[in-house]
């Protein structure tokens, strides 16, 4: 399902002394099957953009098209539920949204709200639980008895069980340990690969953006500062640093290599494997160090 934002403005608390323009003239196209990363500082408008993706916020100006549904400013937008069924959002610290008595009930809550039968929803719950790497025994436990990491996974399973066409992730790994981080990010990437699930990742981590995304949008002061593929984005590190952002470690390492030993790589490599093989090739060809 394609999503596109065109010239979207959003004002928080319009017509009060607290009025604040959160995003301004934001246009982003997300064709079906894309893995898009949105990066930027705290307060750059990332989260506001994210909430437009399933009509939790309606633009103050501009249009958001989600599949064949158009959400425009200054008009009543009905039937947003159908949109929300197709676009699942995993919020920051999603474990805060758990409330049911058992894990199973919490996971089937979303699907059942969208009219899936109980038996079906329970089947989905088992599949989703497996996807997030939890054992079935957990289904009968209270979500509040679980560890933080497990709670996070249950909450994610609750969104996956809705079987959305698009999944939106707001820093899904914030506060997890490095291993949990990698497992969860890899899980989402696998889903993206297997089901052609459009994935939109809002993150602070340049590493994650470089590793998983095929498109990157950089937000700054409520505007889109830059968009492109990871190679395009990270090939001009100076610009990123100027925006107060960082480049992935691999890129930093490559730049240091070039600087220190006067080497010249043809392109920017985004993974250690690629960089090391390129480096090895150069050495084989006998570049003077």
């Amino acid at each position: 399902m394609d999503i596109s934002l065109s010239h979207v403005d959003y004002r928080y608390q319009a017509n009060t002394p607290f009025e604040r323009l959160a995003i301004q003239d934001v246009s982003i196209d997300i064709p079906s099957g894309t893995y898009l990363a949105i990066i930027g500082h705290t307060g750059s408008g990332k989260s506001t953009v994210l909430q437009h993706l399933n009509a939790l916020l309606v633009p103050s100006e501009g249009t958001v098209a989600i599949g064949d549904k158009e959400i425009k400013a200054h008009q009543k937008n009905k039937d947003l539920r159908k949109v929300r069924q197709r676009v699942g959002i995993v919020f920051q610290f999603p474990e805060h949204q758990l409330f049911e008595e058992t894990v199973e009930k919490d996971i089937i809550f979303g699907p059942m709200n969208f009219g899936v039968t109980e038996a079906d929803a329970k089947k989905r719950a088992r599949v989703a639980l497996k996807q997030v790497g939890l054992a079935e025994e957990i289904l009968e436990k209270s979500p509040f008895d679980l560890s933080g990491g497990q709670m996070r996974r249950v909450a994610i399973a609750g969104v996956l069980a809705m079987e959305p066409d698009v999944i939106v992730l707001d820093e899904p790994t914030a506060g997890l340990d490095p291993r949990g981080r990698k497992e969860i990010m890899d899980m989402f990437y696998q889903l993206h690969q297997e089901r052609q699930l459009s994935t939109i990742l809002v993150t602070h981590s340049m590493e994650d953006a470089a590793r998983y995304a095929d498109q990157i949008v950089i937000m700054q002061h409520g505007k889109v500062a830059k968009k492109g593929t990871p190679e395009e984005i990270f090939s001009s590190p100076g610009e990123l640093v100027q925006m107060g952002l960082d480049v992935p470690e691999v890129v930093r390492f490559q730049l240091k290599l070039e600087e220190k030993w006067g080497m010249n790589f043809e392109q920017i490599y985004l993974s250690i494997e690629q960089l090391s093989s390129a480096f090895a090739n150069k050495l084989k060809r006998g570049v003077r160090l």
Partner: protein
Amino acid sequence: MMEKMIFGRYVPADSLVHKMDPRSKLTIIFLFVCVIFLANNWQTYAIIGIYTFFMIGLSRIPARFLYGGLKPVLWLVIFTFLLQIFFTREGTVLFHLGPLKIYEEGMKMGFYISFRFFFLILMTSLLTLTTTPIEITDGLETLLGPLKKVRFPVHEMALMMSISLRFIPTLMQETDKIMKAQIARGVEFASGPVKERIKAIIPLLIPLFVSSFKRAEELAIAMEARGYRGGEGRTKYRQLSWKMVDTLQLVFLAIITVLLILFRS
């Protein structure tokens, strides 16, 4: 929806009312609540009204904002008005409304009481709009200070108050966040049959409770870690200072009171 609430919210501005000492503001509000009961005819209500709007003018809070924030309360005012109209059975009958008779006295009481209510709400929200929660509690703590002699836990009360005021915006944000997360999971808070809507509150309330308890615990630990041990011998970083404006405002209220006594019937 949550964004429009103005209770317990501070609107920073550079105005005379903002600069007043919280002690004088609290005293004025307390006296105002008493004095307003002196009004019993249209002249006296007019005096109260003029005073209220004069104070709002002084505070430089935009009227449109105040109106937007008080809209939900206006329904309560209207409800009070209707209650008075329908249930007072004194004086001459003004007109019939089907089987209901509207009495002159009822009409009068309706107007008076709803206006009294309205002015009270305006003045008290003016207090919270122009005074930071911390100022309010500091003010209360000093004003109630003498009660310590009778072992009334003034400091603890003030602390409780400042904590609850402090966490109103946090709780609002949290509510908003959880509401959005549940809406994304297909909950409808604002439409659908009433039964469904009441049921929809559960997925909102339980996470809110859980996080509030967690936050309370964390706050307690953080306070202890920083050596908090109650109010005994505790000094203040912010000193309150009584200024000329404060005296003048009290004098002004005294004049209003005298006027009210003169004009009441």
